[in-house]
């Protein structure tokens, strides 16, 4: 039984693009902001077209810790439009748990039933024997590998485990070694590390790019993005 999911990240909703010059009679900043919001429905359409029931957003869904009410509510409403598709929102560095505490409270309290805040590291069973292990960002720059604890989680035989984290894989060889599917602590299991900013790997470990560039010169140059 195949399990299909959509992995996206860094929507940076509400970003103002103040660094992009705009002529007095122009509207590029508004167009970019609107494109960010519109990415929600585009991602939902991808999920719908491919019959994926789960969308994993690996951090920085919001650009700041204090997005305006309209940015938050309009985003949650857009995600709620298709109740069959579940959105899982992980705190990133921009919308980290400490700075954005009210934001995550709002999402937990007010979001439609199919939109879920991953505000702590508790495992979530997405489907029978398919577990999601979120690694939420607690502080803007904690300086430590939030995925480090994943390997200490006892394996459940026959279970499929998905680690969800925000940020680049800075040490790929180590990551590959650490997440080898024959890893002794997890016989028969696989951990997928979904991270931004690295190459797609067709190995047993999936390092997936799913980021939207915010400035030219970022590691995501060339990516088509909102």
């Amino acid at each position, binding site marked *: *039984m195949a399990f299909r999911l959509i992995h996206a990240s860094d929507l940076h909703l509400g970003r103002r693009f103040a660094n992009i010059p705009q002529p007095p009679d122009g509207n590029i900043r508004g167009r970019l902001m609107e494109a960010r919001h519109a990415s929600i429905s585009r991602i939902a359409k*991808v999920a719908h077209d491919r019959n994926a029931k789960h969308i994993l957003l690996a951090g920085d869904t919001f650009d700041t810790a204090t997005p305006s009410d309209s940015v938050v509510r309009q985003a949650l409403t857009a995600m709620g439009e298709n109740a069959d598709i579940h959105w899982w929102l992980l705190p990133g560095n921009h919308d980290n748990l400490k700075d954005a505490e009210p934001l995550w409270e709002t999402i937990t309290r007010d979001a439609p039933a199919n939109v879920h805040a991953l505000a702590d590291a508790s495992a979530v069973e997405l489907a029978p024997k398919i577990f999601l292990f979120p690694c939420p960002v607690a502080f803007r720059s904690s300086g430590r590998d939030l995925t480090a604890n994943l390997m200490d989680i006892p394996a459940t035989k026959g279970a499929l485990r998905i680690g969800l984290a925000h940020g680049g894989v800075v040490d790929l060889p180590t990551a590959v070694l650490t997440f080898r*599917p024959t890893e002794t602590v997890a016989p028969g299991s696989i951990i997928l590390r979904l991270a931004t900013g690295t190459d797609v790997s067709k*190995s047993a470990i999936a390092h997936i790019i799913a980021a939207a560039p915010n400035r030219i010169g970022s590691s995501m140059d060339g990516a088509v993005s909102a």
Partner: protein
Amino acid sequence: MTLEGPGAPPTVEEVETGAFLWINTELPLLPNTDCARALEAVLPDEGRRDILIRVRATGWASLQQQADLRQAAARLGPDFAHFDFDTNMLGTTYDDADLDDIDKAGALRLAANRLKEGTESETLSAEERAVSAGALARLYAYVKEAAE
């Protein structure tokens, strides 16, 4: 991403969901490059309104080439959602023909000569040389603009 089960490699399909294209591109120049044509060659032909691009000019170009380049950038830039033209990494070559363009003789030519010496000076700091180079390029541009 599709997961077939524990231990099986996942199948990954990349799906574009963006509306804008962000590009960072380099424009390597040589003293004999046709700068305007070279710039046009690195720019995408289609969809410019939805493209944010930074062009970083590198290498060496004469004052005349740099004036051509600036003119081309000013003409083509407004096609794009955002156009950032960076010449900080572009070195300037000076030849007498360029200085002749400023003036064959007289006060402007004297000033140009002094600035050229400044750019080549071994006693000035790199920062001071850069100031001379910037001033000379500006002087050249002003004279060219006034002549047109």
